[in-house]
Structures are given as C-alpha cells and as structure tokens.
C-alpha cells in the first residue's frame, strides 16, 4: 500500500520536523520489485564520454575471456576496474532535486519513486593505450606474398575484415584504423592484409628503379606513369599501395603525384640489409646502406630509431636489428626485455623503445623513474633495471 499524505505528515511530526521549513513535495522511496536482481551496473564516465552518450553514440566493451575488459569509444580506449565503496548507492529514476521542485509549482504532493537498483561498487575507467600488438600478430598469420605466391593454395588461413578486427582487438575503431595505416596494411578482397616484407621490398624496388630510370624528382612521382610502366609486373592496386605507404599523395594540375618519404624508404632498406645477420660492422653497414638507397637520398642513423641499435662498446662498433614491435607490450615486461638485451642504457638509446608506452600525460622521464634506476658511467647518465634480470 502506498503511503498517504496523512502518514507522511505523521512521520514528520514524530520526527519533530517543522513542515513549514520543508518544501511541500515529498518523495516516498521504495524498492522496485527488480531492485535486488543485480542487473543494473554503474559506470563512472571519464570526461567526454557523457557527451558521446548524450549525442547518441555507443560505447563498446571488448575483451576475450583471457583478456581484461576495456571500454572503447569511437576513438579512445579505457581500462575497466571495479571500485568498491563502503557506502550504498541507490539509483532512483524520476527523483527530482529541490531546484526542479521549486521550479515546478504544481508538484506539492507525494511523488512515489521506485529505487531501480542499488550497488556498493561501480566500474571505473582509466584511459589506456590501445592494445594493438595483437593486430599485427593476427595479420602476420598470413602475410600477402603477391599474386605469384608459392604458398599452398589449399591451406586456409583466417582472413580478417574490419568487423572481425573490431571484435578481436581491444582498441577503438579509430585507433585500429590508424594502426592499420601505420603498419602499411591494405585491403585485399575485403580483408586486411599485411605485406610479406620481401614482397613489400620487391614492390618498392620496382618504384625506386623506375624513379631512377625516368630521372623523376623524388617529390614528384606520377601515379599514372607508374601504373603504366609497372602494371605488367605487379597488380596495379599493389603499385598504388606501395606509393601510398612510402609517399605522400597530392594532386597537381589534375594529376596524382607522390612525394616520396626519404626516411621511410631508407629505413625499410636498412631493415632489408640488417635482417640477414645477427649484427654488422657499423662502418661497413653504413657504406652498403648508402649505396643501396635511391639516388638523391641520404641514409642517416637517426632514421633507424626503434628499428636498430648501435653498440658503441664493441670494437669495431656494430649495429643490429631490434624492432620495437617485436618487444612485449606491457610496461614491466618491456623493460625486462630491454634490460636483458643490454644492461645499461642511455636515455637517447632507450627512448625509441619505450616512447610508445607513454600514457596520456606520461613522459619517457616518468617511465624511467618508475621502471629503472639511474647511475653515472663515464660521465654519462645511464639506466639499468631496478631488479635483477635472469
């Protein structure tokens, strides 16, 4: 039976509260029949997410059974964690505030409000780095080797569409699409594919040889002519893809051109050279490398950040391949891995290998303070592990 005005007034009298000091309207709160079912959850929203929901956009929770759930908006990823409170949180639809009651002069009676649910915990969000390592791993299951691939056609591999990736990768759609661009992935027959490195270099080589034989400026490579000259050697989509991967597309006088990216091309050629041995004599490598890059380009060691590491302690100095994308994604594991490769690092050397770990407002400096210990060596500040590395 619902409470009556008389009952409410009687309670006020018993409580010795003066009705004259109160607003005339009262909410009689009771628990709805479903209140205890525990199907209602509270999610604390980070700035911006409330506006997204109000604008009608969706949020998605992503994670396989063995992964920790994350929440994704259109362009950001958040870790989810349960926060406990020692208090009881009741959520009440249609409960008015004093302001609303004052504004609405008609409400001077009893408002029977049902408590929809209650909880002593809620989901807390914290912006995190999108978990993108899995993306590369999935696409590397079956890299595209070109139309002349020697791969057994009877072997079936998983193919991943954008929708597949959205349900498997713990990141927002924009973060996933951006990463696909970064790794030079392309869509072939509706699925995202990463090119097998040798095939990618083969395509790049076709283009750089053509640029050389045509004596084009590296900043004005015409798409049309590339497709005409190379179309018989490789699929046209692949030629255009390699130009997009290693150049900046623009239009001049109605024609499409590419401004070739010197750093990206030199870096790829370095990878091609370095992957053939454990390490190289630095001076010899630099000579061969410069000879291998297109005419007019300058090979510089700073192009190799996050790709290769120079050992200045060996005599002669050496260089070896170390790709940041091959290292663990999780912070502590990353540092353990780096310190097992080299005991002491300068900030300059380690930065390219931890830059991607920085969260929204973190710097490389704060990461080093947290995960490393510093000391001086020959007048230079170096970082080593905080804990013994086996």
């Amino acid at each position, binding site marked *: 039976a619902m409470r009556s005005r*008389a009952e*409410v007034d*009687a*309670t006020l*009298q018993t*409580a010795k*509260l003066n009705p004259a000091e*109160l*607003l005339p309207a*009262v*909410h*009689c*709160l*009771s*628990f*709805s*029949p*479903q*209140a*205890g079912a525990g*199907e*209602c*959850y*509270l*999610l*604390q*929203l*980070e*700035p911006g*997410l*409330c506006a997204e*929901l*109000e604008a*009608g956009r*969706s*949020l998605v*929770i*992503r994670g396989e*059974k063995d992964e920790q759930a994350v*929440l994704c908006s259109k362009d950001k990823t958040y870790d989810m964690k349960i926060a406990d*409170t*020692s*208090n*009881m*949180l*009741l*959520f*009440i639809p*249609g*409960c008015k*505030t*004093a*302001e609303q009651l*004052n504004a609405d002069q008609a409400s001077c009676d009893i408002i029977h409000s049902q*408590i*929809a*649910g209650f909880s*002593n915990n*809620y989901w807390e969000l914290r912006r995190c780095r999108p978990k993108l390592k899995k993306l590369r791993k999935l696409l590397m299951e079956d890299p595209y080797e070109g139309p002349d691939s020697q791969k057994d056609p009877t072997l079936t591999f998983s193919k991943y569409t954008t929708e597949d990736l*959205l349900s498997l990768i713990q990141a927002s759609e924009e973060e996933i699409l951006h990463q696909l661009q970064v790794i030079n992935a392309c869509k072939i027959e509706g699925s995202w594919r990463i090119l097998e490195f040798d095939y990618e270099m083969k395509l790049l080589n076709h283009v750089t040889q053509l640029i050389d034989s045509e004596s084009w400026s590296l900043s004005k490579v015409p798409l049309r002519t590339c497709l005409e000259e190379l179309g018989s050697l490789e699929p046209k989509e692949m030629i255009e893809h390699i130009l997009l991967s290693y150049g900046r597309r623009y239009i001049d006088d109605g024609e499409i051109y590419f401004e070739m990216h010197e750093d990206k091309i030199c870096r790829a050629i370095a990878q091609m050279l370095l992957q053939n041995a454990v390490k190289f004599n630095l001076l010899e490598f630099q000579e061969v490398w410069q000879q291998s890059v297109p005419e007019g380009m300058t090979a510089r060691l700073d192009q190799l950040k996050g790709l290769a590491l120079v050992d200045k302690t060996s005599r002669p100095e050496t260089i070896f391949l170390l790709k940041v994308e091959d290292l663990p994604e999780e912070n502590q594991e990353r540092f353990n891995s780096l310190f097992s490769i080299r005991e002491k690092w300068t900030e300059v050397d380690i930065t390219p290998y931890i830059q991607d770990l920085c969260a929204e407002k973190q710097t490389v400096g704060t990461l080093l303070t947290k995960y490393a210990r510093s000391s001086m060596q020959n007048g230079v500040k170096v970082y080593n592990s905080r804990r013994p590395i086996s």
Partner: protein
Amino acid sequence: EAASLTHSEGAGGLAEWVLVELQGEVEPRQSSGLAGSLLGDLHYTREGVPVLIVGHHILYGKVVQLEKPFAVLVKKGAGEPDPTGPHTHYNVTALIKTKLLFKTRPKPIITNVPKKV
C-alpha cells in the same frame, strides 16, 4: 568477445536519474527482502538540503554535482546465456549527474507513544 553499450532508444534522449548515497548497508525489516519494500521519505528543506527519514532515523544530506557522471547499464537479456553469440549487450538506460549524499550520522527519532493516524 565484444559487448556493446547502446543508447536505449527513447525519444528525447537519455533519462537522468539521481543517486542516493547512504552510509553502511540498508537492511530489510522483513525477511522477504528489499524488493518492493519502503525505504523512507525524502524531503528537502526550503534551502534545498535533502532530508531522508528512514525507519527511526533522520538523515541530513547534501546535493553533489558529480564531477564524473555515471551511466546506468542494464544487461540485456539477463539470465539467458546466448550459446551462439558472444555478444553481451548492455543498454545505457540513464545518466546520473547528481547525487544526494547522506554522510552525517543519522539522528534517531525518539518516540514515546506511537501516534494514531
């Protein structure tokens, strides 16, 4: 596996609910549990201070505008495990931007003789 939080289809956008935060736990008087039972009367003073009368206690609270609003999620199809699809759906039913925080110790209501209504 992905669970999507979709905006529940309703004209005029998401409803806005209010959170009431009480110290400790709320225990039912009857053994039948909380569902359906009364909690108490919520009044406001003319200055806007929320006053909650729960059982034999008076609780004075304050209105807090939440720095981080809450979304209220309701699991769709709860209680029915879907063998075919891994997708759990949560409906964003409402937003909560305001809470009534009752932190002060409740004042007990002392009664001598039960008043007849």
